[in-house]
């Protein structure tokens, strides 16, 4: 995909944002039947549904939503590596949620204010994502400032996903966003929540050597292929099937 004009640039941006939402929605859906409590199962499924709704609008701006979701190969997906990371334990899922929903909230707030092609969706998404962020924050506080075990598991989860967070602030073509400013607001917000949860901000690089993240260029981590295989299996095995 070589971007030349504004139309192509906005397709690139729609794919990046749409794939983030689609992939994270699928990952959260994997909790169905496995969540630690019924309320939590319902919460994660509802967050997944919000993300799926956002993905449908965004992918429809880029082409046919079903074809894009079910018939693209791994290398054609433009989502962040963060969102494709396996659910891990509940702490990993919550850490991924806080990192991503804080980013998504700040990004959509800026896109909503900017008035571009993504403004109508962003204005809705920002309100939905505020609840996702709040959910992740409340769990981070409860588990971080909880027992010795829950604290340690939260600490490990935030540390494990830290190296995927730099990628969020690589500029996306077609989005008129002040990325360095977005990044510093993200860091400030995450630092504040972790501090209240008696957790420290993880050490280690978020960009450059030993960090991760080339999902926007179509380079994905090993678990992503297996996730896609499961997500696309039915559609590919039974083309044109409908309820």
């Amino acid at each position, binding site marked *: 995909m070589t971007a030349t004009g504004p139309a192509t640039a906005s397709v690139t941006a729609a794919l990046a944002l749409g794939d983030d939402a689609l992939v994270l929605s699928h990952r959260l859906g994997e909790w169905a039947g496995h969540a630690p409590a019924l309320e939590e199962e319902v919460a994660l499924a509802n967050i997944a549904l919000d993300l799926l709704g956002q993905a449908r609008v965004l992918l429809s701006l880029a082409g046919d939503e079903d074809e894009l979701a079910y018939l693209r190969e791994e290398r054609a997906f433009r989502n962040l590596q963060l969102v494709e990371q396996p659910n891990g334990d509940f702490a990993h899922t919550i850490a991924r949620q806080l990192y991503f929903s804080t980013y998504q909230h700040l990004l959509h707030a800026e896109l909503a204010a900017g008035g571009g092609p993504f403004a*109508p969706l962003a204005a809705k998404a920002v309100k*939905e994502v505020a609840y996702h962020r709040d959910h992740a924050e409340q769990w981070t506080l409860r588990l971080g400032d909880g027992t010795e075990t829950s604290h340690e598991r939260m600490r490990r989860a935030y540390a494990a996903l830290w190296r995927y967070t730099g990628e969020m602030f690589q500029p996306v073509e077609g989005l008129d966003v002040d990325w360095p400013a977005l990044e510093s607001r993200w860091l400030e917000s995450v630092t504040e929540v972790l501090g209240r949860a008696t957790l420290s901000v993880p050490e280690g690089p978020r960009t450059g050597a030993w960090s991760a993240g080339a999902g926007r260029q179509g380079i994905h981590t090993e678990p992503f292929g297996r996730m896609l295989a499961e997500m696309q299996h039915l559609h590919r095995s039974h083309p044109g099937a409908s309820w």
Partner: protein
Amino acid sequence: MVTATALEAELLELAGSVPDPELPVLTLHELGVVRAVRLRDADTAEVDLTPTYTGCPAIEAMSLDIERVLREHGMREVTVRTVLSPAWSTDDISPEGRRKLREFGIAPPRVRGSSGPVPLALGPTRTQAAETEPVHCPHCGAADTELLSRFSSTACKALRRCLSCREPFDHFKEL
């Protein structure tokens, strides 16, 4: 701004009278999701419908119900467009809609200028401490209620429990 004709106003009222597929006590008008009806010609109508949540699965059922009602009223062709902007807010639910929700056992959303989650203080499950305006129990009316889960049977509701009558209830949360 084009002035709506009498027929358009009538069709808007008809579309608005369709019950919400999830909460059939409410009409789409009371929910505040039918934005406009325009006549393209004598028997072709276009309806603007806005989703509550972007991923709300009820929107397809709503569209079909609106199409059916307007066809029964003599429209040959009905197109329902989904419009996102301006974003729907729980402030768009009419006072009548709020009253019906309460009677149905769902605590209505609080009216507010800005949307988003209310900041909460953390306790084991008690979360009412920092809230500015309490969510009243739709069963007994008590203000002493606690949040059990931010997400309930649908994305638009939270699950709460009354600390007075001990009944759990859904709260249509502010968006």
